[in-house]
């Protein structure tokens, strides 16, 4: 039998014709599904925030979490700087920026944990009220997404140190970036809906 080993590369002709990448498309579709997942949780939170007034909301520390928000925004900045460095064929700089991203992500999570402990001491728990339930659930699911992002960044960092990425193979980092920025955008929305309005 003649082995017409069609390389995997040729299979995505339609993608090239459209000018898209199947991996990026898959990631954006995944992001779409995550938008809807957070949507369910956000709808629950808003339902209670707007229909069941509570005093507990006064206990939120906007300044503290504002700083944390700034930290997460900075981590998105470090990701784009890293990707930019990779495109300049400077993987060592990418490694640096990935390291910074991981650090900032961990600090963000630490900030969340601190905020949780502060609120818990003041009596806001999962069971104390519908506000407590929806607040902790929404922010914890976001935190889990940050944690997964941190682990992914770690894996990318190890890969970078092993020479896996270069100016010609940026897609893995690009995909990570899309995920990380999405998690950042979710936080922008959460910060607004929970702390600002």
């Amino acid at each position, binding site marked *: 039998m003649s082995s017409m080993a069609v390389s995997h590369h040729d299979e995505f002709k339609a993608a090239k014709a459209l000018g*898209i990448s199947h991996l990026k*498309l898959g990631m954006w579709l995944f992001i779409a*599904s995550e*938008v809807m997942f957070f949507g369910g949780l956000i*709808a629950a939170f808003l339902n209670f925030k707007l229909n069941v007034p509570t005093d507990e909301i006064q206990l939120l520390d906007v300044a503290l979490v504002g700083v944390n928000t700034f930290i997460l*925004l900075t981590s998105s900045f470090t990701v784009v*700087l890293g990707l930019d460095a990779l495109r300049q064929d400077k993987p060592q700089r990418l490694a640096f920026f990935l390291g910074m991203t991981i650090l900032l992500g961990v600090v963000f999570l630490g900030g969340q944990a601190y905020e949780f402990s502060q609120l818990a001491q003041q009596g806001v728990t999962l069971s104390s009220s519908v506000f407590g339930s929806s607040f902790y659930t929404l922010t914890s699911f976001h935190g889990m997404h940050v944690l997964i992002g941190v682990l992914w960044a770690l894996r990318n960092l190890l890969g970078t140190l092993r020479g896996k990425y270069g100016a010609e193979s940026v897609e893995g980092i690009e995909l990570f*970036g899309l995920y990380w920025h999405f998690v950042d*955008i979710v936080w922008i929305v959460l910060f*607004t809906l929970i702390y600002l309005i």
Partner: protein
Amino acid sequence: MQTPANESSHRLTYVLVFLILGGITAVEIGLTFLGLPRATARALFLTLSLAKAVMVALFYMHLKYDHRLYAYIFIVPVALLAIFAYLTVAS
């Protein structure tokens, strides 16, 4: 191949966006201390935050430069989420 001119033009965009994001965040935090009427405050915050999210999407997630399909894939669920959240809260 990236020319030096291209190289700094991307980074400049990223830096500018970052500064704007930081600036808006600082403004938002400041506004919370002003004790504005609720409706005004909400409108302001929602607009400012929308601006932040849009900037991250357009520039950091590269939607401004990529195929429009990706942008639709992002915008449609966001719009759907807004409708769903509104109708859920309203009922």
